[in-house]
């Protein structure tokens, strides 16, 4: 075969390879969610607050659990503007809403460092230093999104820019502003993990073109502090949180339907002789709640009943072995 033909064939092959590669690299599939289909989801929100007054030896517990089922009935999808219309049905009625499922629009509004991270520092007048007093990492995922995973992962990776400022504190004595970057804040943690990595650069490599699973974990135990007004000093003192962890993870189906989302926030602190334990759990899952027929007032005793069930299951497993 002469060199010109070989070049021509090679170019054609390269062109086709480029086309195919672009398709795979972009992983821009058509959404798998459709008009005329009913998509059920379930949502859970739990707050558990336990306190122990150590001076008076008094206990207090507050718990709230909300479990909600709802259904999206997608009626119209506009592929050009990337908006869709759906009716949502829940126990309280029906709503009619339009939703934007474009990834760049979503990233502009939601996948930003200022929206995902909530970080605060304060000035500790007692020790004349800055202290970290608040940290959160959370956002609201879309239930249906354009499965443009290349763009989604790329925009999300951009968020984790270690040198970006996340909080500032004006020095009360010197004419300076203390700036805290994401790196500064993450370096304070006992442990953190983004996409299974303890390093931002390595973490960003995990946001690959076809990735549909994201995990985040931050442990600020014995780092982050709460303020207590000190009446003798006339300003706030700061107390360490013994435990302070945040965990967030979510998955989409490759076709752009939210599969599951979970957020867990936990802290423990002893302040003014009161020990407090707070846990916040938020979950969203595709599908309805699993149904188990349980009569009457069983839910009153879910905790002891679950313990007993675990014991029974362990016993049965032992017998099987």
């Amino acid at each position: 075969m002469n060199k010109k033909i070989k070049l021509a064939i090679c170019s054609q092959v390269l062109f086709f390879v480029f086309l195919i590669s672009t398709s795979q690299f972009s992983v821009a599939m058509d959404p798998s969610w459709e008009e005329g289909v009913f998509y059920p989801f379930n949502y859970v929100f739990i707050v558990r607050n336990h306190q122990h007054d150590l001076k008076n030896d008094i206990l207090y517990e507050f718990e709230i659990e909300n479990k909600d089922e709802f259904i999206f009935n997608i009626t119209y999808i506009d592929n050009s503007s990337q908006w869709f219309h759906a009716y949502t049905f829940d126990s309280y009625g029906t709503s009619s809403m339009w939703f934007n499922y474009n990834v760049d629009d979503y990233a502009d509004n939601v996948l930003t460092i200022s929206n995902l991270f909530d970080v605060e520092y304060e000035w500790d007048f007692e020790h004349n230093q800055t202290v970290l007093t608040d940290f959160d990492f959370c956002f609201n995922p879309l239930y249906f999104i354009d499965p443009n995973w290349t763009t989604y992962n790329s925009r999300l990776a951009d968020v984790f820019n270690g040198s970006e400022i996340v909080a500032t504190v004006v020095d009360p004595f010197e004419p300076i502003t203390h700036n805290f970057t994401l790196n500064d804040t993450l370096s304070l943690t006992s442990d953190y993990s983004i996409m299974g990595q303890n390093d931002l650069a390595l973490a960003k490599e995990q946001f690959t073109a076809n990735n549909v699973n994201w995990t985040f974990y931050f442990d600020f135990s014995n780092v982050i502090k709460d303020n207590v007004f000190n009446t003798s000093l006339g300003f706030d003192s700061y107390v360490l949180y013994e435990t302070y962890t945040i965990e967030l993870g979510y998955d989409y189906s490759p076709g752009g339907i939210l599969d599951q989302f979970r957020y867990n926030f936990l802290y423990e602190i002893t302040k003014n002789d009161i020990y407090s334990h707070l846990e916040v759990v938020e979950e969203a899952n595709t599908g309805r709640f699993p149904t188990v027929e349980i009569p009457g007032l069983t839910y009153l005793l879910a905790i002891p009943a679950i313990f007993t069930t675990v014991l029974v299951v362990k016993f049965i497993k032992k017998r099987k072995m």
Partner: protein
Amino acid sequence: MNRKFKIFMLNILVVLVLIFTNFSQTDAATRSWYAGDLFLFSYSNYSYANTTNTDFVVSDILEVSVKEEGTYNITRVDLSDNTYASIFTGAAGSGPNLLNYFGWEEFTSYRLNLNNFFTIAYDWDYGHNRTVLTYFNFGLIENWPFIEPQWDRINLFMSEMFNESEIVDTVVDPFEPLIHNITFGDFMSSVESFSIMNKNTLAEAEQQFKNNTRKWTFEFDLSNVLMDSVYNFTSGYDVYYPYQSIVYNFEYEYTEGGILDRTFRTITMDITIENRLMEAHLEQKMVFGNFKSLEANYPYLLVLPVIFLVTLVIRKSKNNRRIK
């Protein structure tokens, strides 16, 4: 054994029996709480509500539970006016040194009259031109943790409380010049069922309030009698829907010396209004002791669900073995 000795022993026996009998049948027991004492109680408020859209069978379940321990530090007891002062310490810290009544006379006059013990309300149902029961509740006595243990007097007042001819509510007829007076007897004859001291008639129930009774139990089933309402903009009046099931339970129990041992009130209900089904359970408890005392009082509740869950687990593991 000679006759004189037998008679002597019999007399001793009679005296002994009289002594012990009087002990257990103390009409006015000895108060067991004093100034300087500290008592721990636990409180629990629990609610469960399951709302279902019956068109799409989607549910929302909300459970809220608040539990709190609290201590009463009794600082003073005044027998001249039947008051005691105490400092309550709970999750919010210590309160002021508050004065409260503890006398049986104050308890019976404030609490043991029909219209303080029960709250019963009726409305006019324009849809059917009749009166309907729209509200019902019991009185709780959690503000009487300490009481003068005059059990005979308290039980006497309790037995006399259920006066069927006493009016519990009135409804002005919107069309006729008359007032509908609804008596306690009218209310009682309309309920699905009731149980007072485990008896289903007032006459039998009243006999259960004995001189030394310190535990009182009540259950009212107002299924299909108690109504909820939704305003109808077309008709211009409220439309009433019956609770398919609604049961109230109320119990309270004192120690012999006049310390509240436990009290609880529960309401379990379900109602369907248009395309919404709501099932709810509300529970308020106050018990003597720490948090563990809150669960200890309801062993029967533990047994049923545990058995059911265990059965589910065993059935599931048996099924799994068959598939393999």
